[in-house]
């Protein structure tokens, strides 16, 4: 197998300088000609295992995907759904409608999801003011979806939601994540967007999904370059 030395180093999770020195000293079963590493994969695997190194290509790719998660919110929205003019006067009505549209097969999962959403509302309302609510399950459901998603809901009539500023809710962002870390990351990016008055004003027009995504991308880029 042939690899560039930089890739080989990142596969082994080592600084490039260290790998170069180890090759020179003959401590790792790799031959090197210029910047290309030549090695037998099974031999290197065996070596890595014996020295408690993690060596796998899969891991490297996964890591790359996770690292590129700066657009996590916009991509979550694009994986989710946007529902307009949803009828219903209570939290539970709206929640059940969204769950129905999320495409969850299992009835048990549906009930569990609803239960956790309501549990969270019991703790304190997720109406965060300015007419926005961010319902989410009390504890993330880890095996419901492969990746995080956001469902955006515009109710037909503004909704009584016990918001902190007593305002009526005109848009709901359902945050569905697999773990707490992901949830916080999504929440932090969302909170950044909502901090801007023009984003709220933009939402009041009930824009189509593509426009919402591109708007969020804009804010996420801004956040990145800060």
């Amino acid at each position, binding site marked *: 197998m042939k690899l560039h030395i930089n890739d080989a180093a990142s596969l082994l999770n*080592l*600084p490039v300088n260290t790998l170069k020195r180890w090759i020179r000293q*003959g401590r790792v079963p790799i031959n090197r000609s210029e910047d290309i590493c030549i090695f037998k994969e099974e031999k290197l695997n065996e070596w890595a295992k014996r020295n408690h190194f993690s060596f796998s290509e899969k891991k490297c790719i996964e890591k790359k995907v996770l690292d590129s998660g700066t657009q996590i919110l916009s991509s979550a929205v694009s994986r989710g759904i946007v529902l307009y003019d949803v009828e219903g006067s209570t939290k539970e009505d709206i929640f059940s409608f969204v769950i129905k549209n999320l495409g969850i097969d299992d009835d048990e999962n549906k009930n569990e999801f609803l239960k956790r959403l309501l549990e969270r509302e019991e703790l304190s309302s997720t109406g965060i003011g300015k007419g926005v609510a961010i319902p989410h399950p009390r504890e993330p459901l880890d095996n419901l979806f492969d990746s995080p998603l956001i469902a955006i809901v515009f109710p037909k009539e503004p909704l009584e939601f016990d918001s902190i500023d007593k305002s009526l809710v005109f848009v709901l962002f359902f945050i569905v994540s697999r773990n707490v870390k992901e949830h916080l990351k999504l929440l932090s990016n969302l909170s950044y967007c909502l901090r801007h008055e023009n984003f709220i004003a933009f939402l009041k027009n009930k824009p189509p999904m593509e426009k919402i995504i591109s708007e969020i991308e804009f804010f996420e880029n801004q956040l990145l370059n800060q």
Partner: protein
Amino acid sequence: MRRVFLKRQAQSIIFSFDENFLLLIMALIVGILGGFAAVFLNYSLEFCYEHLHVFRQYWWAFFFPGVGAICSCVFLKKIIRDDKGHGVPDVIYSVSKKGGLLKVRSIFSRLFSSILTIGSGGSAGPEAPILYSGAAIGSNIARLFSLNERQRITLLGCGTASAISAIFNAPVSGIIFTLEVILAEWNTIYLVPVAIASVAGTELSRFLRGNQIPFSNSGFNIGFDDLIAAALLAVFTAVISVLFTRSMEKSNKLASSFEKKFRLTFFVKAGLGGCAVGIIGFFIPDALGEGYHSIRELISGTYSTGLAIAGVALFAKIIATAITLGWGGSGGVFAPSLVIGSFTGVVFYRVFTLIFPEANLVSEGGFALLGMSGVMAGVLQAPLTGIFLIVEITGGYEVIVPLIIVSSLSSVICRYLEPASVYLKELVEKGTLLRPGTDAKVLSDLKVEEILEKDCLEVFNDMRLKELIYLLKVSKRNFFPVVDRKTKDFLGVVHLDHIRPYLLDSLMYETVFIYQIMDSEIPVISPDTELKEALDIMDEYSMFSIPVLSGRKFMGIISKGTLLDQYRKELMVQTSEI
């Protein structure tokens, strides 16, 4: 051009074979070449001995060692331009610090200079020069084939093993000496190539010189009294070993102070030393040369009787060797330790039988053997080499039990009195003895660059605290280097731990500037700083991380956390077999 072409050819051969198999073949070649070097040196010394021996009775013979020493050091210093020294420390240094690199000229340099020194009568051993040649042969063959450092060190070890094996006709000692003293690592990856080289060297010397045991004897009958006497002898040999080691050191210092005081050129110094040895040798011929002849007499029990004669010869040999090596001659301490050891054994035997005439001891020759083993183990601090070498070169397996007692006890006592052996002393003093898997080796291998963390966010000295608060969100560290906005020179650091009280005070956000809260008097290091030194600085100031500057520009930081991570990996890789 030709050299490059040769190298390419060699490399392409390497890639088409299995590496380990090739290493074994190369070990065989190194073994044969090392064997040749040993046989060559041995013949040359015998030639010199035969032709110069007849002149020994004349008074002017004391000039011989002087002339020999002059020629030897002029040859080494001016003609071939290699470093001075007795060889083994250089080989160990090369293994620990330079990945086993040795010069091509080192193959010949010590070989010829030691022939001149020892052949003319200087008191030194031919083993170290041969060992040095063998090591250089192995190292340069590895370099020709562009092998990696581990393989190069293996071939270097093959060279030393074959040299020792060939000169003593003792394959096991060659292997053990190499693993115990030169490589200091009992690793199976070394064992097989070293064993092959050792056997090749031995077979070559047997083919050319016949299978003779260097110091044969008629066999010994060891009794219980001998074991008790052996334990006592160990104390005696340990004292003599330390005396020998220290007198060499003293002689070296004396020579260099003489050199400064009288502004002697190096060859005049060597000549003076040689003549002094010649004068000693005129009265006590046993102190001259490598001394194998006297060992034979001592073991067979035919050495002239009398306690005083043996005692005087013992000290004469110590002084002669110290002068030869300290004043500029070329050679090793291997053979002199054997000679001194056998004298020690004989002197001990004579004293012991004088005090306890009724003790039922084995012959005088037997104690000469035990003494050799004791002094050998003490001077080299290598008990296993002491045991196996004596068993092999005397063909006397019956003495192994007392040999083990003398050898191990002597080396333990010596280690107590002199923590580093004669080979390692210099290296330990300079801090360049880096045995594999030790803290010093790990720290010297790791470079600052390898653990440098570059993900620090730089801040400017005229920024307000508020701006720093924003950066806190994106930074992964609690450590911000401060640089000048214009020149980008490093000014100091802001450490979160130090500004924690201000972080939640919104009044201070606007009013406090970075330069007011930065710490500008912290120690810094450069990328070339040795890690050990960096760690010492961090410990002194109880820091967890330290900035690295290249000139006045900030490069990154090194932290103990990352260091531990890398340190552990390094240690695991260094100590595991490939």
